[in-house]
């Protein structure tokens, strides 16, 4: 259990409670100040409005932060149950598990990793052991895609999450795995992930965001910052499977140094509304960034995906592919932007969004954008929205496959392009199964 336990259920919009919660970090005054700054920023910013360009197409009317509170620590039996459910990956390099923002399982690293200087700790432990590292890297970027208010709230209540630091030249093949569960009704969680891969380090991360029950109401505002040094290789899989009544926000920031290789796959099935903001900053030449996203949206779900690829350095590559399958009355919004700075010559940047409408009432919105200030570049974007190919459907049905099954098979085939990029077989199988289950929930 964490030594820093929170008081009983507290409302996240209450100044006094926030301030009392921060008081627990008195021993780490810089951190308490950081939280306080977050609180002030949160209060000073307005809620997003309908005509806010960064929230175009989003349903801002139903956005609400009231009625959520930091939940108390879970009972022993719940802890045991959820820990047992956090075993998707059989041999992780390290496993950390949070329930309602409380760390219930701290990672135990193999001695050889510790000997190489690898750090994988809960945020509160890292506060004690590695304050310098946190001071240098923690929350150094603004949200930038419209989620500033939410990121500020995340900062104000920051407690749960992890620090992962891979020192220079260290290569870890097995994935580092993190689980965040929501359990209590009305729980607010603020999971944080800070990944620092030094020069030539190699690391794989799997983040699972899940709910214990399929329909408990929750608010999740997560952030993940990745710093990839020169020649570092970072692979991340982020799975969003919160309960069907959750409002979730995921604000990611990735910085890629010279010759770094970064790949990420965001898989989304959960939440009533889920917003993903993903900024990738290419600061060094030769970097190679691959961003993928898949989602299966059902019911009245809204998946709101905002991405920004910033090429500040030349000779670098970035490639983005987001695929959404839409059922029922669901809605997906993809808004992507590639920015190429004036001096970032010889940039190759691509962006593709493909939406598969499996229902007549679903809506797919696409805002693929480019801002190119250099001339010697290859940039393109493509966006398509359409239905299952009728010829393919006919082919399957002619072989006796029922319509529903045939549609599902074709939709799975559509999503497989992204799943194939998840290198860890167990992780890919887990996601594949989650998508399959989603199809059968209808």
């Amino acid at each position, binding site marked *: 259990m964490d030594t820093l336990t929170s008081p009983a259920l507290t409302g996240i919009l209450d100044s006094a409670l926030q301030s009392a919660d921060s008081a627990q970090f008195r021993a780490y005054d810089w951190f308490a100040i950081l939280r306080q700054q977050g609180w002030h920023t949160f209060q000073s910013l307005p809620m997003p409005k309908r005509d806010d360009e960064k929230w175009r*197409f989003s349903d801002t009317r139903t956005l609400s932060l009231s009625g959520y509170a930091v939940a108390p620590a879970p009972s022993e039996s719940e802890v045991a149950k959820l820990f047992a459910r956090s075993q998707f990956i059989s041999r992780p390099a390290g496993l950390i598990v949070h329930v309602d923002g409380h760390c219930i399982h701290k990672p135990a690293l193999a001695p050889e990793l510790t000997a190489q200087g690898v750090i994988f700790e809960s945020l509160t432990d890292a506060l004690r052991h590695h304050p310098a590292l946190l001071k240098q890297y923690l929350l150094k970027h603004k949200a930038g895609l419209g989620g500033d208010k939410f990121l500020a709230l995340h900062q104000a209540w920051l407690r749960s999450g992890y620090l992962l630091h891979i020192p220079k030249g260290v290569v870890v093949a097995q994935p580092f795995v993190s689980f965040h569960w929501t359990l209590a009704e009305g729980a607010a969680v603020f999971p944080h992930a800070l990944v620092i891969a030094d020069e030539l380090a190699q690391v794989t991360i799997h983040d699972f965001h899940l709910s214990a029950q399929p329909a408990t109401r929750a608010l999740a505002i997560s952030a993940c910052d990745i710093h990839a040094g020169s020649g570092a290789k970072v692979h991340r899989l982020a799975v969003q499977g919160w309960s069907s009544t959750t409002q979730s926000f995921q604000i990611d920031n990735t910085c890629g140094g010279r010759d770094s290789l970064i790949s990420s796959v965001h898989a989304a099935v959960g939440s009533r509304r889920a917003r993903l903001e993903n900024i990738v900053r290419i600061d060094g030449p030769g970097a190679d960034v691959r961003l993928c996203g898949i989602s299966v949206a059902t019911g009245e779900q809204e998946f709101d995906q905002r991405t920004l690829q910033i090429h500040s*350095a030349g000779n670098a590559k970035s490639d983005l592919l987001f695929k959404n399958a839409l059922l029922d009355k669901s809605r997906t919004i993809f808004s992507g932007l590639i920015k190429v700075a*004036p001096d970032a010559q010889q940039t190759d940047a691509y962006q593709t969004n493909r939406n598969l409408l499996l229902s007549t009432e679903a809506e797919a919105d696409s805002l693929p*954008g480019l*801002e190119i200030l250099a*001339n010697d*570049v*290859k940039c393109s974007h493509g966006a*398509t929205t359409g239905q299952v190919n009728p010829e393919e459907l006919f082919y399957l049905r002619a072989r006796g496959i029922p319509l529903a099954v045939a549609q599902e098979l074709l939709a799975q085939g559509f999503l497989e392009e992204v799943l194939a990029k998840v290198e860890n077989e167990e992780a890919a199988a887990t996601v594949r199964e989650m998508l399959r289950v989603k199809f059968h929930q209808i």
Partner: protein
Amino acid sequence: MAEIDESQTQREAIEVDRSKGDFKYEENYAFDAGVGLSPSVVDYISKVKGEEPWILEFRQKALKTFESLPMPTHWATTDLENIHFDKIRYYLSKGQKPVRTWEEVPDDVKATFERLGIPESERKFLAGVEAQFDSEAVYSRMKEELEKQGVLFCGPTDGLRDHPEIFRRWFGKVIPVGDNKFAALNSAVFSGGSFIYIPKGVKVAQPLQAYFRINAENFGQFERTLIIADEGAEVTYMEGCTAPKFETATLHSAVVELVALKGAKIQYITVQNWSANVFNLVTKRGVAEEGAEVRWIDCNIGSRLTMKYPGVVLRGKGARGEVLSIALANDGQHQDTGAKMIHAADDTTSNIIAKSISVGTGRSTYRGLVHIPKTLKNCRNNTECDALLINEHSRTDTYPAISVRGQKNSVQHEASVSKVSAEQIFYMMQRGLSEGEAMSLAVNGFVNDLVKEFPMEYSVELKRLIELQMEGSVG
């Protein structure tokens, strides 16, 4: 963090040679609406035109709307803030046209006329030295032909006065007053433009050219055009010309409404080449009823800032909309162009092809909107936008918005940004072309398939114009 420095490029864009358009007004006019915008200016314009009370009411309401709407700078460029509405003349009656002499016309403009092969008689008119050149004969011959077919081709004042039964029904309906700030401004102070009605089944063989009619009056700063093609009618309308048009007024804000009734076809061709001090903020939209087709062919070469997104509302089953757009942004220019396709009926199709070229510090922007709501079936959209960047500091942006629901609807959008390949240039230079010629040839190749869509004489001039713009951009 080396974020992209927007302020730098914007500052550069503002450094425009203002002397080019810096002509003087004479001060003592018989009728002078004066400078700035107020209800009395609107009253004045309406009175001079002898309009009916409902038009005055329409104008006054529009003025209120204009004042209540904010500048769209939350998505558009902040360069808009450099428009000083209180320093603009909103109406110039006859005799209030700018006066200048042939000697005052800059040499490069004279050279451009030469290169484009503009007839001697038209040069002085285009340069603003003479108020008009003698085109009365051409115009009246054309008018005679058209009248036989029952075609109406007049200005907004005549149109609304003499044929209210035809024009009033659609006037301000395709583009309502509150559509955007600049459409509201135009609705308040519009003067000049063309009102056209093509009767049922009439196919007008020759393109109607604004050029021949409008120079008989003052070329409107706030043009208002309404074209109605009745069932099965067909018409092509051409606006603007390739020659540079020197203007004293720095704000141009036109509203163009097209109505294609059942089975009608309207093709609207624009070549915009305002001088580099002009803000050109235009709203253009067409409605296509069942089986009708509206096609916008839009070419933007001049102006300091152009914001123009021709749109088609596909209101009838099987309607078709198309926008073909070419934009060329040179030093200090920002071509913010695009297209809107609003699908509002089954089986409708739309096509957008946009090509832009950015030269020097020029910036070209594509903004698109494709909307297919949930009640519809079998709608299709295809969008392609390609940008070519010539110099190191050239800039291009693409901001499409695509929203799709419903059954069996499909959209595809593709955009690419590239530069002229070194291999191509090398290949041509090896065969004796200079680098400039090679570049110009490559750029013409890039837009060739769109230029072909223009009427022949325009496409020839366009090619020459692109060559001119490309000169000095390399080497």
